[in-house]
């Protein structure tokens, strides 16, 4: 079912390509379960472009992170393919003036969910994967031992199972029909709520165990489209020196506090931090909690309105609820 979508994406991009300098999209990766970002510069590259539930990466970061994708020809725009969640990162970046809306051309793709390859492998076992495709609500993988079928619900990424915004919030062109959201935002924090029901000690134990695995490889940070400090991140600097090189749980806690609090009121829950983590630490959950807080305290949802001011960069003198 995604052959058609890919075809439509290629055609749409092709039509817009003369006006664009580069289009950031996805192409096949090293095996059928993996896609990798691709930067389409001319029509000859179009055949690489793909769309499928394996297109997991949020590409918006490439527009702002050094060396950022920029139009060499100022009269042209940068094209970018986004899923619903990805588009919210774009909105946040526009809001913070890292991107100008009129300098990008957004190919929006309504999305029914992306596949978490680790969940597939866990259900496996799979060896020598030859093909993988999503058919309706099933994932079909062929490997050396033949075909395997998985229920899509069992292999979707965690963030997709609680997706409230499957349709791009901003787009210049929409590829495919809008999708009905799985849940409303208010109801998308089930996992956070389950954590909240635990005792303080259990939560501490949970995070100590999880965060202790952190390698501080900074994949979560670098994969985050809104972690705009990049090489200047205070997790690594000595001026100022927030963290040491100690491999201690406290250090890891503080690193994730820094990461999360810098995203408070900004995170769009694209889940890239969690997906990038080689140790499978549920780091997006931390930001989900912060988003739940800003939603409850300030009725703010990040990445929805390009004109809005992130809640921690402003104040309301009269607010007494706080």
């Amino acid at each position: 079912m995604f052959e058609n979508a890919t075809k439509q994406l290629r055609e749409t991009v092709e039509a817009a390509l003369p006006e664009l300098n580069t289009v950031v999209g996805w192409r096949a990766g090293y095996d059928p379960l993996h896609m990798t970002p691709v930067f389409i510069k001319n029509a000859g590259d179009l055949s690489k472009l793909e769309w499928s539930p394996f297109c997991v990466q949020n590409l918006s970061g490439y527009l702002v992170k050094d060396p950022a994708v920029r139009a060499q020809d100022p009269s042209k725009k940068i094209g970018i393919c986004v899923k619903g969640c990805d588009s919210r990162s774009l909105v946040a970046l526009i809001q913070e003036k890292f991107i100008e809306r009129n300098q990008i051309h957004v190919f929006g793709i309504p999305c029914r969910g992306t596949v978490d390859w680790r969940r597939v492998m866990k259900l496996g076992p799979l060896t020598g994967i030859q093909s993988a495709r999503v058919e309706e609500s099933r994932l079909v993988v062929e490997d050396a031992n033949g075909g395997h079928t998985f229920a899509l619900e069992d292999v979707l990424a965690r963030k997709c199972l609680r997706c409230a915004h499957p349709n791009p919030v901003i787009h210049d062109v929409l590829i495919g029909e809008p999708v009905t959201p799985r849940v409303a935002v208010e109801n998308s924090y089930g996992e956070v709520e389950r954590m909240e029901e635990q005792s303080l000690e259990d939560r501490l134990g949970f995070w100590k165990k999880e965060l202790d695995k952190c390698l501080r490889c900074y994949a979560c940070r670098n994969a985050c489209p809104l972690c705009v400090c990049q090489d200047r991140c205070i997790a690594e600097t000595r001026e100022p020196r927030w963290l040491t090189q100690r491999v201690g749980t406290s250090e890891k806690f503080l690193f994730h506090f820094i990461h999360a609090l810098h995203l408070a009121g900004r995170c769009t829950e694209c889940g890239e931090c969690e997906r990038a983590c080689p140790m499978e630490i549920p780091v997006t959950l931390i930001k989900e909690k912060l988003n739940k807080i800003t939603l409850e305290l300030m009725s703010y949802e990040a990445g929805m309105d390009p004109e809005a001011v992130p809640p921690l960069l402003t104040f309301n003198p009269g607010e007494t609820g706080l």
Partner: protein
Amino acid sequence: MRIGVFVCQCGTNIAGTVDTQEVARRAGNLPDVAYATSYMYTCSEPGQQEIQRAIREKNLQGVVVAACSPRMHEPTFRRAVERAGLNRFMFEMANIREHVSWINNDREANTRKAAELVEMAVAKLRFNQPLFSSQISVNKRVMVIGGGVAGIQAALDCSDGGLDVVLVERKSSIGGKMAQLDKTFPTVDCSSCILGPKMVDVVQKDNITLHAASEVESISGYVGNFTVEVRKKATYVDWTACTGCGACIEKCPSRKVPDVFNENLANARAINIPFPQAIPKKATINRDYCLHFTKGKCGTCQKVCPTGAVNYEMQDEIVTEQVGAIIVATGYDLFDASVYGEYGGGRYADVISGIQYERILSASGPFGGHIKRPSDGKEPKDIVFIACVGSRDASVGRPYCSGVCCMYIAKQAILTRDHLPDTRVWVFYMDIRAPGKNYDEFVRRAQEEYGVQYIRGRVGKVYPKGDRMVVQGNDTLLGVQVEVEADLVVLATGIEASAGARELAEKLRISYDQYGFYMESHPKLRPVETNTAGVYLAGVCQGPKDIPSSVAMGSAAAAKVQALFSRDTIETNPQVALVNERVCISCGKCIQVCPFGAIQWKELRGGIRKAEVLPSVCQGCGLCNATCPPKAIQLQHATDNQILAEVNALCA
């Protein structure tokens, strides 16, 4: 670094409950501490000399004094270490008196706490850097915003001191509220007689530039170097040509224009000079009523003007003024009495406000100084004054006392009895506030000499009965209900912040209180300064006050400006934010949050821009520092590393 620690005994103030010897001993065990001692009175002259001797003999590079609050003696010790050759920022204080010895008697716990506070101070000091002030040049022109009596006084004082002054007035004439007054308390001298000469002085001074009918559009820059854009509103009369002859006014066919100066008790013309003593005495067209503008068919004034000054095509003009300091004297507005529906203000013609009565009393007022009531022009036989209308009443959001009403009621009552000795006067009041020189005597005169009836109590209701008004209230002293029939009711409306005060405050980046009055730097010790360097306050814009206080404040603000301008340069406070351009990610969040507009973009080569702090504007709050994600902007002397050092000294 070689650090010296001096633990003050403060006589027994500290040593009484803290083992200062032990604190000093433990300090000696801290890294970089090369000298530690305890001293009887460190702030005394010999104490300071001891510090200076140690700096020289022990070759100290930083000093910690553990003593009283830094809010008390930090400047003292900074000067002391500076005299011994250290930079004054290579100094830290640990507060072991107010925060330790005075709040608990447990000697052991206190000693431990003091030692830890010293450890924190030492830890911070290890990250201190010498900081240096820089000099910025001062443009010795001053702008006064508001041409009421406070602004006029400030302008004249500055002018007398030889400064160039730019006076900006929103209305077409200066004079402010005082110009509308008939007489002033407690001397009962003629308001325009004492104010008029000052107004005339303003135009006669060569070094005062007056922009009337003008408003401040925008303000940028910082102390010593402000750039102010002033919007000169279109008056449709070329004031350089207008002689103020009044020919146009006489001939203007639009005659039903509310006379604002007379508080709408009379009519004016669409082209008008607000009052005979107006400065500048120039005509202004009111577009809302001028037939040329409303109907597009009159041109009388243009025809009759002997100097051809009328120009219907006139546009607003923006004038840019460069000044080094700004005095804000924007005055006040009066409370809208109609908020109290039960008093009937605004509903009944014979229920009027104090300022309206002031115009009625005035010889140049709508009735030529004859006391008549607005409804039918009859002389009132009974007049009731109601005090505290929009003052001392939290239910209308005005819990404060307006300070002048008791006095102007007394004045108006006295004047009433002077004009109409047979007229009876009642005053409903809550308390009499008359704390000024000769004020209480004045109120007593009203009561005792002039027979004014003071009734202590709130008025519940005012309603018409025939052609008179009935005032129903309590006499709380007698504990009885009172009803007074009156021909005229005067509501002593209180003072409120000027409309537009908040908007101007945002432009000036000064703060205001919940009522919109501007905030002074310190309510006792810095009453005319604001927290924005180079911006001063005068008059009622800061809070209710009477004429002498306003005038005094105008002079005080002028004196502050003179002091500021007495030097060619200003020394900046080095405890400001500083951007490390290599780390700045150009996100602009610091610019977004800075309450003072002290951060701006700096364009570098290649279209790159970085945040840049204007050290003379920065007030050192550190909000930018807390906001900056990569911590590229650091508040000097309270950097992340310095605060972290203190935190780490405690928890790590």
